[in-house]
């Protein structure tokens, strides 16, 4: 009997004190003003390099850096726009529309490396000899006018097109290449994929599959990047040179986004990304570092 009473009392105390703590903390200043936590959110593509850079920074400086990938690039843009994070990650250039959506935010794009969006196919299609695709063909697939690989010189196999989730930088780069602007993209519904590994896994295990994927993930073992045939009939591979020189049409810069000129912790982090160590991490994850671009 006594035990229970004691238990109840202890419990009440714990509970009330935790309530108190809660209240005190909600009244406290937001860490953003104290500048203790650096929060980063956005593109899963950029995340790989940034998250590892954050690991190094954490060890070197003891700072707390939160990295998350909610909603991909547009998640990064909107959360920066709403003031929820200090740095956004984006794998596509900002559009006018993005800026208009968050007028209170002074977006700065910080170019940290380059990548390209590859159109990847599964092994059976690659082995059947399909190596390149034109913009017109891709449009026809996207609009549902071409549904079989035969039309592209491939086997008699339905095209299993996995569309990258809207809001992903990959999708926006792809859409811009295909239709000039995102608003011009027709309304279509395809099965959607999100993360890069999910895309690679699903394309690799599906015959006749086609999807958009960061070129660094296209390993040419499980999934294979198609070359793009331009209007002049040139076939352009998503090679490092072609991406660096922007000959490959879906080359894209990778950005960190800040609200205003980077300052304090943000500036420190950005400088780290520009340093050799930071740039090496960009390379480590298969992207092109800034130095490779200026070649």
């Amino acid at each position, binding site marked *: 009997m006594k035990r229970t009473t004691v238990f109840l009392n202890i419990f009440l105390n714990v509970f009330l004190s935790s309530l108190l703590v809660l209240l005190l903390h909600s009244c406290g200043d937001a860490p953003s003003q104290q500048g203790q936590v650096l929060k980063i959110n956005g593109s*899963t593509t950029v995340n*790989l390099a940034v998250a*590892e850079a954050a690991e190094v920074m954490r060890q070197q400086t003891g700072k707390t850096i939160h990295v*998350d990938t909610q909603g991909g690039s547009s998640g990064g843009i909107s959360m920066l726009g709403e003031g929820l994070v200090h740095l956004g990650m984006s794998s596509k250039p900002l559009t006018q529309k993005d800026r208009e959506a968050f007028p209170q935010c002074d977006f700065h794009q910080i170019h940290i490396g380059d990548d390209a969006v590859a159109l990847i196919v599964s092994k059976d299609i690659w082995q059947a000899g399909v190596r390149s695709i034109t913009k017109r063909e891709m449009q026809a697939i996207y609009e549902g006018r071409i549904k079989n690989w035969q039309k592209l010189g491939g086997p008699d196999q339905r095209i299993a097109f996995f569309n990258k989730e809207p809001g992903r930088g990959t999708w926006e780069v792809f859409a811009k290449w295909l239709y000039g602007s995102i608003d011009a993209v027709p309304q279509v519904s395809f099965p959607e994929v999100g993360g890069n590994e999910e895309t690679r896994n699903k394309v690799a295990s599906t015959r006749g599959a086609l999807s958009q994927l960061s070129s660094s993930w296209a390993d040419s073992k499980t999934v294979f990047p198609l070359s793009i045939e331009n209007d002049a009939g040139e076939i352009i591979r998503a090679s490092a040179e072609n991406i660096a020189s922007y000959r490959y049409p879906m080359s894209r810069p990778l950005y960190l986004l800040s609200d205003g000129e980077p300052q304090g912790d943000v500036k420190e982090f950005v400088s780290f990304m520009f340093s050799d160590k930071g740039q090496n991490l960009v390379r480590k994850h298969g992207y092109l570092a800034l130095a490779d671009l200026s070649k």
Partner: protein
Amino acid sequence: MTNREKSHTKNPSKSDSKSRRKRRLIHELMRLFTGFCVLLSCCLLLGIVSFIVIRGLGALSVDFLTGVMAEVGASGGILYQLLGTLLLLLTAAVVVIPLALGCALVQSVFLTREAHRRNITLVLYLLNGVPSIVFGIVGMIVFVQWFGWGKSWLAGGILLGLMILPTVCVTLIERIQAVPKKYIEAARGLGLSRAQTIRSVILPQSIGGLFTGLLLGLARAAGETAPIMFTATIFSGATLPSGVKESPVLSLPYHIFILAQDSYDPATKAKLWGSALVLIFLVFLLSLLALPARLRIHEEANHL
């Protein structure tokens, strides 16, 4: 009279045995079918668990449990993911215990009208049915937007606590109702007030139900991703929180969810399965801890 009376069983002995054979056959088929159901269910469990054990065991080590994630999940351990999940569970427990005690006592002791009691039960059932993603969305509206907490461990803990409230509460109510009436009457007869009766008779007899329910509920909460992904956890960088606002934690389910979609390095895969194994182990541990109490209740119920 005997003969006449027996006629309907003895006479058509042939058709009788035919119907008996038919019933016998149905019996055997039914046993076969239901036995198969049990076997299949158990095989599913064993299959799933052994699949995860086989894939994840390689990653498991002390360093894995006590190390910090490195190289975006490809190396290092899951210390903060594990601690984050434990913190969320602890918070959920702290949140749910007073609520569950309050609701259970009101339902089974203070409310005297059957209709009112039923209403509380109804609310609990409804709460039990609320999809976990809806908890996530509501949490996002309340904690992230309205309170301006950003992502916070406390928000996750509160949401998980509310989510498991029905499990805890219903188990507790069952235990309270199982307290023999005569004890309560005896206590009241001795002149104890209602509050004293609760403290000295009802709670000591039924507090086990609270813990059983809590363990079962936490086992469910430990694996939930949907309520916390918008409100409490991030992918990397958080350690232990020092405040409420803008204080996310890492967590095992979210870790697995993200890596399942975005793991570049094959080394990450092994770590991913290792994390899944640790999570399952945690969940099983919680359910197993609740087992002795449940077995005892079961035995008692059998002897009554």
